[in-house]
């Protein structure tokens, strides 16, 4: 073996050099590990430092003229609305697709089907945005018109619907497509880890395939599904381009099928290139808020995964 041949050399050499190499190497890798903390801390610190002028500025100098809080909260709400629409669409479909790959598709094709779904994740967000604005938005207009006519009494479907289709709902649908692969790939992984004995026991007792899935697969996978949905939520909250290109933004309104509303990420992307002075620091403050929201969501997701790992003994 070549490895043993080359590895014998240091043994024959004076061992002081080897010892130094050992401590240098372990020091380097430790430093790299600690750098991760440093980077995350630096992200928070520099955002905070640059955002400070916003918090110190008098209320009437902030965009909107009523202070930072009333500037940011419609954006936070818009971000949440877009993410919730995306989750409502992507969660059921994502879990069903994961079930398709793990339990329904013929074994021959299930692997390639997995690749196809991963391709969805590989497409850059700007292309989804361009596609959403040029193909999806016009295609959804008749549907929005129908909603406005028949369900217009519900505030979120109040008409008249946007005739370009560039609405919060469209942005939510595009986001749903983008986060679907996250939910699918994580759920699929956990579905395939279900103990075979549980599945076979259920089938042997005469369960149909769906009863088997409901009784053995889903209870086993529940924490995994929850954390995959949380991770997808984190992604949907921070996604920028899909919203920036698809949504024709405006002040906050209740209706999801009119143009209006805005998310934090898209607000930053649209305004940052021309911003200077206080406006710059305002947008960075908005970024800080977004960072904190996604941080909390991701930490909850990771905590669920960590707890679940301890109990399942899957390691």
């Amino acid at each position: 073996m070549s490895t043993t041949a080359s590895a014998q050399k240091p043994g024959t050499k004076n061992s002081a050099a080897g010892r130094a190499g050992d401590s240098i190497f372990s020091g380097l890798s430790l430093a790299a590990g600690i750098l991760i903390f440093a980077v995350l801390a630096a992200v928070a610190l520099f955002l905070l430092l640059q955002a400070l002028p916003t918090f110190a500025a008098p209320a009437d100098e902030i965009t909107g003229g009523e202070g930072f809080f009333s500037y940011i909260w419609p954006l936070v709400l818009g971000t949440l609305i877009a993410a919730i629409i995306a989750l409502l669409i992507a969660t059921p479909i994502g879990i069903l697709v994961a079930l398709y790959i793990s339990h329904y598709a013929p074994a021959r094709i299930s692997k390639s089907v997995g690749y196809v779904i991963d391709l969805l994740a590989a497409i850059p967000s700007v292309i989804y945005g361009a596609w959403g604005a040029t193909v999806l938005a016009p295609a959804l207009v008749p549907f929005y018109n129908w909603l406005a006519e028949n369900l217009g009494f519900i505030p979120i479907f109040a008409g008249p619907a946007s005739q370009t289709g560039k609405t919060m709902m469209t942005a939510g649908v595009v986001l749903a497509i983008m986060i679907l692969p996250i939910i699918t790939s994580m759920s699929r992984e956990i579905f395939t880890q279900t103990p075979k004995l549980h599945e076979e026991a259920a089938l042997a007792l005469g369960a149909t395939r769906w009863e088997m899935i409901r009784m053995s697969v889903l209870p086993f996978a529940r924490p995994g599904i929850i954390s995959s949905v949380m991770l997808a939520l984190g992604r949907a909250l921070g996604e920028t381009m899909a919203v920036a290109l698809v949504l024709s933004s405006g002040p906050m309104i209740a209706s999801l099928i009119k143009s209006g509303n805005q998310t934090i990420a898209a607000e930053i992307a649209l305004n940052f290139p021309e911003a200077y002075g206080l406006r710059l620091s305002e947008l960075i403050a908005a970024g800080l808020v977004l960072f904190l929201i996604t941080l909390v969501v991701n930490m909850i997701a990771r905590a669920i995964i960590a707890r679940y790992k301890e109990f399942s003994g899957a390691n």
Partner: protein
Amino acid sequence: MSTTTTKPGTSPVRESRLTRGQRPKWLIPVIGVGAIVVGAAISALIGFNIATWAIFAALVFLIVGPLLIGAIEGSRAGSDSLMTFLVYTAFILAVIPLISVIYTVLANGIPGLTSNLLLTSMNGVTGAQDNFAEAPGDVVGGAYHAIVGTVSITFWATLMSVPIGLLTAIYLVEYSNNGWLGKAITFFVDVMTGVPSIVAGLFAAALFGMIFGPSTRTGFVAAVALTVLMIPTVVKNTEEMLRIVPNELREASYALGVRKWRTILKVVIPTAISGIASGVTLAIARVIGETAPLLVTAGFATAINWNSFSGWMTTLPTYIYYQIMTPTSPTNPDPSLQRAWAAALILIAIVMLLNLLARLIAKAFAPKTAGR
């Protein structure tokens, strides 16, 4: 069990308890055809088009199918078949956008793939020239500067993130011994995965803004932002690969008196190199399509700029974004859209090639793990 002794064919009148109440084989195709016909009829009522036809046909099938099967085979089989149909429907729903996106990019992008696009920049291209362009081939200006920007920014990001990510993964697998620090680093790497890309961009912009004055925008600032996004991917992929290196290899090396760092460099990493390389390729594929952090860090250039340390830069994603949002000729956006879609086609091709390359590397150089 007595019924099972009935020989098939001898007494067709009395069916077996086991085969009684089964749906005939032709039932599902017939429901399918029926659903398509009824769907067409309902869709014709509200103004026929293919989308509503498909939706109504699917709805009819999803309602009638399980009800019929439930009536024949009992409610358990009915709900089982409902779930089966739903699972298949969900899969089709998930594939439709993928096909639509790829079709849109191909259909809109191929006419714009001219030599101009690949070999010229947008330097000096004005709206007047766009207004004169009639055929797709007449459109001047291209994405060469954006390709240059993409390559150089991605290069710097890779150069910074790969060593850090690799060493962090080595610390986690080889040195941390499941200590608290290792656990904390793993946790924060996971948290870092979830940092929104625009926030990474803002961080780089804020960092360089503090040091070099506000609105410092160069390719290198963008590379720093992309590094923040790339490190967690590299760490996770590398860690996974290092963990599957069999412990026997390490122990054999230690038994020969080899130092730990030599063992890692000469035994562990060579064994895992294919997985690491494919992980790095996937990480590159992920950041190469990032748009948001570049909007706030790299500025927007129309000329070719190879120097990442001074001057603004454009990458393919920001090029696409700006061509769509602010067409070169506001009165005639078609040439800009044509350039944008062609650039999108190039970008998607690069990303797909990188993904394919990653799989090929993983397959071609996979270590022989015979006996394990």
